[in-house]
């Protein structure tokens, strides 16, 4: 880079004032285009990734990026590294973003990682550069309709232990009011199944006319989309829309904020347009019908899921439900609502835990659990199916076993309504 050239006159007159010598010294404008920007241009040429080029490095994102607090990563840093010639496609940075959307909230230039990440990742997947554990999740989803690799025929097995009848649309052969889109972790993960059973009992107790797709349901696919497998997402969306279109119902209720996001913004592009609510939104509208019979005498804090809160602006519905629970005290953590921290599971993070471990001092879920413990919460209430297993792991790995229990809001409601016998408290 050339050295800046100083211009200095013996005397200069500015607005009638005489400025002598060094008082009028100015520097010539410097061109900083000597950077070889070809790598940055390669990235911003990818449709969807254009806005990476808008970054003017104010660094606001670095201050709010949950990944930067446990590692060395933020959108600004990505821009800078790409500008210096480190291709994002080859960099581990590409797989660290959880698409939590906190950077976009503060970015004055609207550098949109929510568009950049899936676009660039798709390119990396095409070039065979994606971490293998992520590819396994993709392959499982393509083959079995769930990222876990469980048998698609066993997707409804959880309903047998729910203790209430759960109508399956293909057998019911009648319209319903609510089509409940259950999703993968709530269908297969042991803790997810417990929350699903709780929610089923609540629906049953409220006499809600509902049905599920059962084995006709496949993963909604939103996290696979964010992780760079748009084709897989399309395939899943087409399948789910085809199945849903066979039946009549008034609205969809989802367990999973990621599915909520997909139904709200993506499925309509493929012709799948239905009114959709997250279950906390739906139940908060039915609070008047709920009879609470048991107290929950605990200090509870709530973790806003990125895809319910920041992505889709719903902060109140879960809190309305929690505040209705008799006996409990709701305490907000420092990071809450718009500034909520992230569990690390979004954007494919759910399937990259081994990969990200090398680039972080601890998991995001561990950082979040420490915060909940700092606030002396006894229960960490969540409402995204990724979170119960992630936070329960983190409670153990941070040595907080016995101090903090992690529960889905549906489990708390069902207990307080007298529909399940016990709360799995930490001690």
């Amino acid at each position, binding site marked *: 880079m050339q050295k800046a050239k100083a211009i200095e006159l013996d005397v200069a007159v500015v607005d009638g004032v005489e400025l002598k010598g060094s008082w009028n010294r100015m520097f010539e404008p410097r061109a900083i285009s000597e950077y070889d920007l070809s790598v940055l241009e390669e990235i911003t040429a990818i449709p969807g990734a254009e806005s990476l080029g808008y970054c003017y490095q104010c660094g606001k994102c670095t201050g709010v990026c949950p990944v930067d607090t446990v590692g060395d990563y933020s959108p600004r840093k990505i821009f800078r590294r790409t500008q210096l010639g480190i291709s994002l496609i080859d960099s581990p940075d590409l797989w660290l973003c959880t698409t939590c959307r906190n950077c976009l909230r503060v970015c004055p230039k609207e550098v949109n990682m929510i568009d950049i990440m899936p676009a660039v990742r*798709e390119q990396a997947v095409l070039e*065979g550069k*994606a971490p293998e554990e992520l590819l396994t999740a993709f392959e499982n989803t393509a083959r079995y309709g769930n990222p876990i690799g469980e*048998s698609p025929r066993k997707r409804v097995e959880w309903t047998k232990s729910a203790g209430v009848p759960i109508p399956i649309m293909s057998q019911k052969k009648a319209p319903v009011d609510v089509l409940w889109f259950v999703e993968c972790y709530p269908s297969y993960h042991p803790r997810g199944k417990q929350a699903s059973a709780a929610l089923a009992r609540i629906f049953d107790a409220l006499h809600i006319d509902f049905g599920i797709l059962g084995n006709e349901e496949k993963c909604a696919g939103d996290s696979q989309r964010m992780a760079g*497998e748009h*084709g*897989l997402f*399309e395939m899943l969306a087409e399948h789910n829309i085809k199945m849903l279109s066979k039946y009549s119902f008034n609205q969809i209720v989802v367990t999973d904020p990621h599915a909520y996001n997909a139904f709200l913004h993506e499925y309509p592009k493929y012709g799948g347009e239905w009114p959709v609510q997250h279950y906390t939104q739906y139940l908060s509208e039915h609070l008047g019908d709920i009879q609470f019979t048991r107290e929950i005498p605990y200090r509870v804090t709530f973790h806003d899921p990125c895809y319910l809160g920041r992505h889709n602006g719903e902060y109140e519905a879960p809190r309305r439900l929690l505040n209705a629970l008799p006996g409990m005290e709701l305490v907000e953590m420092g990071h809450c609502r718009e500034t909520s921290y992230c569990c690390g599971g979004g954007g494919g993070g759910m399937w990259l835990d081994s990969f990200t471990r090398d680039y972080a001092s601890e998991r995001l879920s561990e950082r979040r659990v420490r915060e909940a413990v700092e606030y002396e919460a006894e229960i960490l209430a969540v409402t995204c199916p990724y979170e119960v297993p992630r936070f329960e792991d983190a409670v153990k790995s941070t040595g907080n076993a016995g101090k903090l229990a992690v529960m889905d809001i549906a489990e708390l409601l069902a207990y307080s309504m007298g529909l399940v016998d016990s709360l799995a408290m930490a001690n």
Partner: protein
Amino acid sequence: MRIAVLMKSVPDLVEDIALDEDSGQVLFDEMTYVPSEWDDQALEEALLIKEESGAEVTAVTVDTGDSDNILFTALAKGADHAVKLVGDYDPSLTNRRRAQIFADYLRDQAFDLVLSGVQAIDDIDGQVPGLVAGIMGWPHASVVTEVHSKDKGVVLRQEYAGGLVAEIEASTPLVIGIQAARKPPRYASIAKVRQVAKTQQIEEVEAESPDVPTLAVRRFYKPVASGHAEMIDGDVEEVASRIIEILQERNLLRR
């Protein structure tokens, strides 16, 4: 070098095998199928040879009703051609007949190298590569982990018990049963597979059903486990404690 990769799908063991225990028959129509993992390895090795020294790779299946996905995936991964041998075949097709159908097709083609998975989970009447080679009278080698093109032939590595490996120089034509490719099989993104399915063609070749020596399977049955493991129930902590107890009882822990 022209390479044919013979591929097939097998019952997916993530699902239970559909067995009618009364008749002892496997209900082939009631199972879901996945590409045989060893065939995926064979395809990968073929693509690696292509990338290393240039080759034209053709993926070949016998159409038992579920080949298109295998073939489009192979094309998406980098195979140059896809051939489906069609006739009146269903998933119960035996390996011997499958091998004969492959051999009848291959005989008229000028392939230098034929790769296939060394085995599959349903190889009750033999493994495809050895059978195909025997029918055509070609030399072959199984349990191979590496193939490189060299001069007019190949150099391959064949594995024996205990991890002993022989490096073998062989001239073509040759059939090779691949145990594992040099690298894990690559991923074909769904977008790519779907694009390929729209833009590329699978060549269909009529294949007559040949007469082959057959085996009469009297019945299939679930093995009576000489004793199923005694299951330790409980959560991780309980299971860990119980295991430590068992090890103590058997004096397996250091004092």
